[in-house]
């Protein structure tokens, strides 16, 4: 059990705050904490099974078509997640909307398949997927919580700020997403510098 493979996705090589991957869904769905978590879980599922398949068949895939093959595999798992959400959790499916199919082009998934799963053994690939996936999920949760808190005074639907707090609606809008993420990445940079 290589602990390092699992933990790197959680902090040191964090997909969002350190590698700056998967920006599109990060900005789009983090209007509330719960949407962030839902998207995070969907990504963990797709990442896990995609890395599973890629690491398993890496020997028989010719080099020239590997990207096309990985993409088809990823698209298949994303479609499965999409169908699953529509059937079992229609409200979340509506909230996440078109960003579920966009998981296909979430650079994190193709990135990990190409950079890791195609070159490492199955067990390590699965750990990598879990680490990166969970890291992505907590990253979304933090961003979503901040935007929900400042934009609506709530987190996970629970009113946390006093009722006379005038919500900063801009937080729920696209502009707010960019601003909060920008500051969070700066914060991560600062924390890394303090460590050194």
């Amino acid at each position, binding site marked *: 059990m290589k602990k390092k493979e699992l933990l790197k996705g959680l902090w040191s090589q964090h997909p969002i705050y350190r590698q700056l991957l998967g920006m599109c869904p990060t900005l789009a769905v983090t209007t509330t904490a719960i949407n962030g978590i839902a998207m995070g879980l969907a990504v963990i599922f797709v990442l896990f099974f995609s890395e599973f398949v890629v690491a398993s068949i890496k020997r028989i895939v010719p080099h020239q078509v590997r990207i096309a093959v990985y993409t*088809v595999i990823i698209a298949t798992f994303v479609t499965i997640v999409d169908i699953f959400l529509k*059937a*079992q959790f229609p409200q979340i499916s509506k909230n996440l909307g078109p960003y579920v199919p966009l998981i296909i082009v979430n650079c994190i998934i193709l990135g990990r398949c190409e950079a890791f799963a195609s070159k490492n053994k199955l067990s390590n690939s699965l750990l990598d997927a879990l680490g990166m996936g969970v890291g992505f999920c907590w990253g979304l949760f933090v961003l979503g919580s901040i935007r929900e808190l400042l934009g609506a005074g709530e987190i996970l639907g629970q009113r946390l700020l006093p009722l006379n707090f005038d919500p900063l609606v801009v937080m729920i809008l696209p502009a707010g997403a960019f601003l909060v993420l920008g500051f969070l990445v700066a914060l991560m940079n600062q924390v890394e510098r303090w460590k050194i």
Partner: protein
Amino acid sequence: MKQIFKICAVLTSICAICAFLLALTHNAAIGKIEENQKKAIQESINKLAPKTTRQEKIKVNNTLLWKLYKDNALIGYAAIASGQGYGGEIEIMTVTGPKLEKIKGIEIIKSNETPGLGSKISQKPFKAQFENLDVTTPITYSKTEPKKPGQIQTITGATISSKSVVEILNKKIKALRVNIQ
């Protein structure tokens, strides 16, 4: 030559396996998905007309509607109005009074309007304007405070979405009048 053959073979077989897997998943889930849609429709009817004890679903001239009864008295009609909004189709569930003089309210079942702007048509403040709205004459809209009965105020920055809702509703109410008479 052998290379190209191998490439095509691998790509094709992977695509075939994936397509098969998706077909399986789709068939397994389609029942539940359609059930969810039916549930959403029922929930919106219940929300708008909670006192309904019995519903009668009928089709008149291609128009689908539900006759709503409380005990044995007809208390209104429910119908789905749909049309083009700003970002795609908008589907609205509306419940009218028995004489088609008022609408009890609206629920947006489906929409794809601009997040943060047009999407506000699904929210309380906009929807509330349609509660017990007078529809003896077509609904009108204004960018400022409504000045007459049967008029609603459009959402700032989402005039087209708001207008679309009004136009879709007017068209449906007109069709209902023709078909119910």
